[in-house]
């Protein structure tokens, strides 16, 4: 991983701001999620716009010219348009053409699924440099009334990009990735409409009934998350005969502060090795890990040789982990 950069919209929305729109309170939101504020985009801004800004900075930091990108991978669940992919829109925004561009739609684990693909492309020598972006505009897809508050208060907008390139030292870089899913729980955290299983795919009723907004069974998500997170972290460590004690930093997908803390506690990971920033961004799904990674680097928590574990769990359910020797 040659570089990381983030781009979040300027507008900050506090819990008190949301309490004007719905029956909720700062105390309630903080207690259950750890979130104090999130960012919302304004005007005609899409996931690809935020992603393109983050990507330009990531390329500059990596010292890689945009035209030398071999492939663009965009992880999102809130694409700019229904189709084509936000990867194509981002490619256009960056003034690029020719290299492949596609979206990965794996929700909260999207960045890790994308990382696994990017890693394979580079390790096999197919592409020298892969641009991997996680970007979301949730704010236009939330029911910000009392009816939708359980989901509405959680999500925020943001994007981050990483440049993946060759690592000559075999002991360093992305050591491995581990991906899972369990579609049995697909309807525990989902956005039903539009969808090809309905006839027709979209109706006025679906819009009026709020079926175009995500729904969540929070308790079930929590229960599965606190099981799968430690499982997939241990899977990554076991693959390299490493233990939790070897970890320098754990960056979980920022889904919920309670989940992250419970996972860290269960692993007996010291608090200073857990990185969280959900209080300022909310849950930015596919963008949350790279946003957090960029902040962790700026905070000096990532040093040369640091062993970092990234892990995610979310809608699908999908989950995964990646182990990186910085």
């Amino acid at each position: 991983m040659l570089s990381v950069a983030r781009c979040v919209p300027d507008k900050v929305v506090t819990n008190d701001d949301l309490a004007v729109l719905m029956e909720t309170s700062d105390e309630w939101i903080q207690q259950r999620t750890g979130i104090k504020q999130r960012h919302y985009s304004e005007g005609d801004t899409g996931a690809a716009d935020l992603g393109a800004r983050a990507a330009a900075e990531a390329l500059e930091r990596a010292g890689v010219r945009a035209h030398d990108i071999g492939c663009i991978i965009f992880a999102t669940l809130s694409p700019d348009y229904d189709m084509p992919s936000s990867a194509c829109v981002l490619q256009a925004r960056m003034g690029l053409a020719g290299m492949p561009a596609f979206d990965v739609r794996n929700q909260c684990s999207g960045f890790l699924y994308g990382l696994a693909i990017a890693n394979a492309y580079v390790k096999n020598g197919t592409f020298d440099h892969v641009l991997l972006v996680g970007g979301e505009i949730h704010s236009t897809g939330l029911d910000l009334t009392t009816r939708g508050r359980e989901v509405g208060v959680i999500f925020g907008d943001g994007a981050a990009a990483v440049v993946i390139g060759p690592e000559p030292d075999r002991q360093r870089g992305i050591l491995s990735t581990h991906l899972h899913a369990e579609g049995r729980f697909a309807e525990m955290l989902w956005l039903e409409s539009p969808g090809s299983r309905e006839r027709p795919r979209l109706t006025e009723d679906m819009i009026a009934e709020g079926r175009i907004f995500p729904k969540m069974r929070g308790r079930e998500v929590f229960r599965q998350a606190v099981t799968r997170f430690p499982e997939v972290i241990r899977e990554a460590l076991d693959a390299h005969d490493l233990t939790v004690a070897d970890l320098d930093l754990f960056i979980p997908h920022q889904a919920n502060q309670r989940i992250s803390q419970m996972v860290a506690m269960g692993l007996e990971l010291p608090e200073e090795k857990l990185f969280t920033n959900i209080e300022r961004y909310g849950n930015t799904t596919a963008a949350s890990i790279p946003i957090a990674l960029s902040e962790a680097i700026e905070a000096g928590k990532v040093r040369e040789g640091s062993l970092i574990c990234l892990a995610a769990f979310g809608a699908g359910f999908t989950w995964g982990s990646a182990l990186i020797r910085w």
Partner: protein
Amino acid sequence: MRTALLGMGHHLPPLGDAAGVKRPIAETGGTSDLARPAAEAALARAGASTDEVDFIVFATMTPDVTFPGAACFFQHKLACGTIGSLDVRAQCAGFLFGLSVADQFIRLGTYRRVLLVAAEVMSPGLEYSERGAPVARLFGDGAAAVVLGPAGGDGGLSSVVIHADGRHYDRFWCEYPSSRQHPVRMTLEDFREGRHFPFLDFETVRQFGAATLPAVIDESLAAAGVDRDRIDRFVLGHVFPDVVDQVADQMGVSAKVLNPSRQYGHLVAASLPVSLSAAVAAGEIGPGATVCLAACGAGFTWGAAVVQL
């Protein structure tokens, strides 16, 4: 080490009326439902059980629901435990993009058996009015699956090349729901204007396909180190079947071309593998045959692959 196509299967729903033409139309069920029998056929032909599959790649632009992806629904229906299940969005070239990703995982040794699915249920999202008919009658519903694994001998996938040019993203697109639209990505007004239906700039899509397909076919042949005349069959996917005719004629390979859009309507990501699987099942293409697959469409995305069966 190369990646081999160990088994293929496809599934087409019965023909129905699509704005005046007959197309395979799924009257019920979502994309993952259509994919299931295709995958079961592919696994049977590969002699593989679901337990052996260690990763799923699902290429579609018409998932069962907005999220999670179709791969998650499909994984559950096929009872594939907790293996990783990826959704790829690359529109008309989705199968080739999925093939590229699956090939990478197999060559790196990450996974030994990848189930690659390409499936579309377009019909519930089309506009069957007079206004929408010219677009609605282009498409069909269909699914195909391929079991991929390391090749034992010389056969298998010898090249797969993929490309995109996002500058044309609004020449073949479905604009809404759109997360760019503030404050909400889909309103009743947007719906009443029909902005959730696909739109095509026929002329631009046609010209781009005609210019791009020959170039990407030659690129894939060069990457595979195979001459054009060594190819037994070309499977060419484009929303307009006459573009495929034109490309085939120009390249002098008309006698060897399969043109899925003429046969089924455009099945988007599923076009190439449905056509190939159907030809193999009918005995038109046998083991050892060398096939070149190429597609171009929305995004714009395009690609090509050369594979020995």
